[in-house]
């Protein structure tokens, strides 16, 4: 896989994780709306459990995204 493809994949993964973090966060504080909008699939309890698990992969992917971007940036300047 080329570096550019990897960067793009990591970027998309980061976006998905960020959105999931936001949605599950809202699933805690605005659970009435999120539960109804997800047809009962994402309740408060599930939101809590997902939200408290997601920060680990989110930080890992964020670190990967930053590392790839920094290295890519340096190469670009050279």
């Amino acid at each position, binding site marked *: 896989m080329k570096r550019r493809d990897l960067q793009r994949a990591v970027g998309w993964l980061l976006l998905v994780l960020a959105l999931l973090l936001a949605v599950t966060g809202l699933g805690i504080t605005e659970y009435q709306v999120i539960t109804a909008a997800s047809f009962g699939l994402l309740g408060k309890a599930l939101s809590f*459990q997902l939200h408290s698990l997601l920060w680990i992969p989110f930080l890992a992917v964020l670190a990967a995204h930053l590392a790839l971007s920094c290295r890519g940036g340096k190469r670009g300047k050279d």
Partner: protein
Amino acid sequence: MGTATVSGKALPAAALLLALLVTGLLAGCLGGQAPERLPGVEVREYQGKDLSSVNDFRENSILGPQHVNITDYRLTIDGLVGEPRNFTYDEVLGFPPYEKVVTLSCDEGWDATILWRGVKVSDLIRAAGPDPRANTVIFAAADGYTTSLPLEYIVNRDILLAYGMNNITMPVERGYPFELVAEDRWGYKWIRWVTGIRLSDDPSYRGFWESRGYSNSGALNESFFGD
């Protein structure tokens, strides 16, 4: 002489005026309007401790605030009791009142410290004659919400069923007429709009959030997930 004549007329007039004044005052004090009771003012400090406001709560109930009709309201106490009871709002307020400053900690990450005023749940239970087999108290609310707590905790910790917050009547949004002050328990144990108290011998009973994965004990020093 002229002066004497004037004084002679002025004296009865002054006496009449005085009599009218006294009569008026007495009428005002004895037979007049009773003083109008104005709404209480929320206190924000108690014995040197800062209190949160009754407006410092997030609305997170399952069906939104419940508007309980207080004339029809009954607090039911049943289950493992000798004599099931149905108390009106005023009858509950007839029990000895107690006050406590307790902090509600919500699992959503916020908290509020309030001066709670209410009656002891144990007093209400005692009035119904609890069965010795009872070990669990199941609370039900006007919106269908339920939760449970051990009877031992309710009795030993003098848990209150509150009708006042910070010296004012409990607002509708907070659970009027009654909210349980489940101290040292997560916010989902603080059931609002309480309509029923049932004594049970089933400690495994799970209420609304407990049956959706929340801890049955709800203890603040433990995670609110599990058991």
